[in-house]
């Protein structure tokens, strides 16, 4: 099958922009909207190649000051729109058993330069890549119960 090759050179706008929303909606009705899925980290890339939801091969080269986010339109023609869809960030939720465990866990995560957020007695680790790579590094904490993983 012939793979469509697309080029994006700027961020045209957002799919909620008043002027653009109607055009995007019209293209949606005739199934001409393609998405590219990016993680929060990946939105910082300015030169990359990516496959769209319809299998097109899309080469993206953007100015450094461009901003890519959920809903950014990078291609908009009579024939098609290509829109960024942000992959939701995955979190690993951890609960230390007591203060000692909390201190150690905090140190450990900082030492590994993980991105974390605090939520009450929970520590949340932002996952960049495979979850197993994080669990491996927490095995001693999880193994002896000093830290509990919350999955609900």
């Amino acid at each position: 099958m012939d793979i469509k090759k697309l080029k994006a050179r700027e961020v045209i706008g957002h799919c909620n922009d008043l002027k653009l929303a109607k055009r995007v909606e019209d293209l949606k009705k005739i199934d001409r909207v393609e998405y590219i899925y990016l993680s929060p980290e990946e939105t910082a890339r300015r030169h990359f190649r990516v496959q769209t939801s319809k299998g097109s091969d899309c080469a993206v080269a953007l100015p450094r000051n461009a901003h890519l986010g959920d809903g950014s339109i990078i291609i908009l023609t009579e024939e098609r729109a290509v829109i960024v869809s942000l992959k939701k960030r995955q979190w690993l939720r951890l609960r230390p058993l007591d203060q000692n465990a909390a201190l150690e866990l905090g140190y450990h995560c900082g030492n590994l330069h993980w991105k974390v957020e605090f939520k009450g007695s929970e520590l949340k680790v932002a996952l960049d890549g495979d979850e197993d790579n994080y669990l491996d590094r927490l095995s001693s904490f999880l193994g002896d119960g000093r830290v509990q993983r919350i999955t609900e």
Partner: protein
Amino acid sequence: MNLSHYHRPGPARIGIGGPVGSGKTALIEAIVPRLLSSGVELGIVTNDLVTREDAERLKAGGLISPDRVLGVECGACPHTVIREDPTLNIEAIEYLERTFSSLDLVLLESGGDNLASTFSLDLVDWWMFVIDVGAGADIPRKRGPGLLQCDLLIVNKIDISPHVGVDICGLKKEAEEVRGGNPVIFTNCRNGEGIEDVLAHIRRCVLLEDM
């Protein structure tokens, strides 16, 4: 002030990381002449701990005009300047971009570090991690974030495998397994083996050629 350069894509940025002595500079030395001869305009930034050794080596090597190479001293924590606080490197890259307005590509060599070092995508668009056969057959199994998360893993110095008792086939299988299908290339930077393959990735994924 001319701001027009803000509104068009600037040069692409590639990071090259990996442990001390794995062959990062050697890889640059292998790819630079091939990129230049196909008309790609280049700049290079290197990070060293407290010297500018690699920048000096590249400048003296005659492969590229010396004023297109900048050394940044990064102090004792080479991973900090490619991830948590890349300001010094961004400044160096922007200096090259201002000075050479037609650059297509900037290569950034990180100071030799451990298997945990990774690049921030705020600094580079795409990055390679260089390990070498001499470090032993079991490195992929150590699952360092650098080796797992890079866009392209390079296993260099395949020529020394008989001397260090490393079975390349086994290493290849393990590396591909931990990478979950992401690319791995085996190279010998001394004789150029595998280098065309590396260039093909750069041309396709970063320079966006073949369009």
